[in-house]
């Protein structure tokens, strides 16, 4: 049951769910959470590959990549939420369709 294809299918399903959240929702907070879903789906794939191709001497490259991904996710959440806060303070909305002026 715990086979590499099954783990990768789980990873792909989580990633696709995250993509749906980013594309279909308009609340900026939920869009940010969906990005976290996608990053976690990728982390599952990294851990699964590390489990099934362990390499030599207990040096799991996949585990290192997952830690780096977590750091990137934390940075992304901090900056994203700061943007949402600044935007809400000025416009009283978290709707991503209203955020057109962010281009300038």
């Amino acid at each position, binding site marked *: 049951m715990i086979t590499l294809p099954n783990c990768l299918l789980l990873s*792909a399903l989580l*990633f696709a769910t995250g993509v749906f959240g980013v594309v279909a929702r308009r609340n900026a907070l939920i869009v940010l959470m969906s990005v976290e879903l996608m990053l976690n789906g990728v*982390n599952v794939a990294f851990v699964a590959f590390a489990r099934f191709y362990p390499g030599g001497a207990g040096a799991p490259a996949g*585990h*290192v990549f*997952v830690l*780096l991904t977590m750091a990137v996710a934390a940075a992304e959440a901090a*900056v994203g939420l700061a943007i949402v806060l600044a935007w809400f303070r000025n416009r009283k909305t978290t709707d991503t369709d209203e955020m057109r002026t962010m281009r300038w």
Partner: protein
Amino acid sequence: MNLRDFFFVLFSFLAVFGAFLTVTRRSPMYSAMSLLVFFGAISGVMMILAAPFLALMQMMVYAGAILVLFLFVIMLLSLRKEELGGERPWPLQLLAGCGCAVLFGLLAVAILRAELPRTAPALGPEFGSPEAVGRAMFSEYVLAFEIVSVLILAATLGAVVLAKKHLEPPAAEETPAPPHGEAHH
């Protein structure tokens, strides 16, 4: 079906369930709570896949730090119903759902057609321990580690600046920013 398989299936279903609830709930607070279920389930999956250190970091970093950050912001905004913003009309949402189903289908075909191992190799006792991960991170991947520290520094500065500054409304004509952000107050 032994116990490991049972828990793998259980945590997988929990993760998919939590992810589905996260993207479908109307209120960000419910989404954040579903995200907690999702993070816990992913932590369990990592534990089963012989990554105990990462399972711990998953709980500490995601559930402990990132989710709390989300909750802080949700409570700080305390959105009323009319401030939640509209949702896309259902045909567009259906279209997005179909697109994501196609994406998953393509990935699934690629995964199922590839030659992938189905039996897990035996592992040494030190696999996935903090010592093994740390040794790999500070020897072979030390460059990536250092670059991530720069990224985090930049993100910290960016978050502080964004949270402090008052953005100009776009209706005002574009004048150069005053030297001090607080000059008009």
